[in-house]
């Protein structure tokens, strides 16, 4: 995820302090990976250097960082460009799972067992996400669904590979 663009996007609704930005980010996007303060301040320094934000005011007192940041016109253009560009789909062509299956077959280890263990692990995580979805709000449900659909795709691949294991073993040993 581009933290810079996300923080810029959050600034579009109005100027904020670094601490407010971190809190807004964590609330919306950082459920599983909250930002470190260091990340926020280093990102804001970079955005400031590049003219995408400006210091809107400095408050005296308390904490170490009391700057309030505002997005600039260049920053708004940058967010707009980022949102309008499609993300490059992950090609998934270098799969660790595939490598493990082939190596298991090449070395005479149990590839079917490997697939079973992986299926159980995927399903364990899917259960966890399904439980989390139940108690979550719509945003949390959508985040979990995104992960669940990817895990489901992996599981379908595991099933397909399990069904073709004998043929794959033959081809590899040829």
């Amino acid at each position, binding site marked *: 995820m581009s933290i810079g663009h996300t923080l810029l996007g959050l600034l579009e609704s109005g100027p904020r302090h670094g601490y407010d930005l971190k809190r807004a980010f964590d609330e919306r996007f950082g459920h599983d990976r909250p930002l470190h303060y260091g990340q926020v301040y280093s990102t804001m320094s970079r955005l400031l250097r590049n003219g995408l934000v400006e210091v809107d005011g400095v408050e005296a007192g308390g904490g170490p960082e009391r700057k309030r940041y505002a997005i600039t016109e260049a920053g708004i253009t940058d967010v707009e460009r980022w949102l309008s560009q499609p993300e490059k789909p992950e090609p998934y062509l270098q799969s660790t799972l595939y490598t493990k299956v082939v190596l298991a077959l090449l070395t005479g280890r149990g590839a079917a067992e490997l697939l*079973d263990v992986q*299926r*159980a692990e*995927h*399903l364990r995580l*899917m*259960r966890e*996400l*399904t439980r989390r979805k*139940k108690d979550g709000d719509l945003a949390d449900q959508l985040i979990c669904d995104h992960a*669940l659909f990817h*895990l*489901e795709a992996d*599981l*379908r691949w595991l*099933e397909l590979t*399990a*069904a073709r294991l004998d043929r794959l073993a033959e081809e590899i040993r040829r």
Partner: protein
Amino acid sequence: MTTAPLLLASGIDKAYGPTPALVGADFALRAGEVVAVMGPSGSGKSTLLHCLAGIVRPDAGTITYDGRELTSLPDAARSALRRSDFGFVFQFGQLVPELTCVENVALPLRLNGERRRSAELKAEEWLTRLEVEDVGGKRPGEISGGQGQRVAVARALVTAPRVIFADEPTGALDSLNGERVMQLLTDASRDTGAAVVLVTHEARVAAYSDREVVVRDGSVRSSEWAV
């Protein structure tokens, strides 16, 4: 885990003509747990469910339910057990088209001898719980697939069964409806303490279970207890 299984199958064989469907299948179900039975099409998972529920008699092996040997019970006794202790949800065609939804849900109670008024009151309560109270007076042909499955779940739960057998219960539903049905089914079974045997080929459906077993080529690949 030391809890004795409520339902235990050992060494189940079942063939349809020359085709083996189950080969030495083992399965165990504890009271109140939700177990997904997964596997590719034709792997034997539905046959396993039918054997466990006493619908199909296996060629070999034993199935014990709550200390009773299911495989040696006469047909009438197995039918009575199915009516009193088991509930069923299938993918298609399980509601009686001539009856209203309330009458459909009340049907298992009526078959067990309960009076109409009391049976229909319970049916209405379950329809409300499954969020389809507004279709009570309609016939199955007049409601959507998602509503029909909720009515079917209500009918499976109305007798307070100890085990619910669900065979691809969301197979004919879109993703959102399927998930809602699974949520309602598992919430209701956990509230009432009913165990669920859930046959599915969909991982997202299986994710509502406590653990899964995989049937492949007629044998159960993983039947360990949940941790």
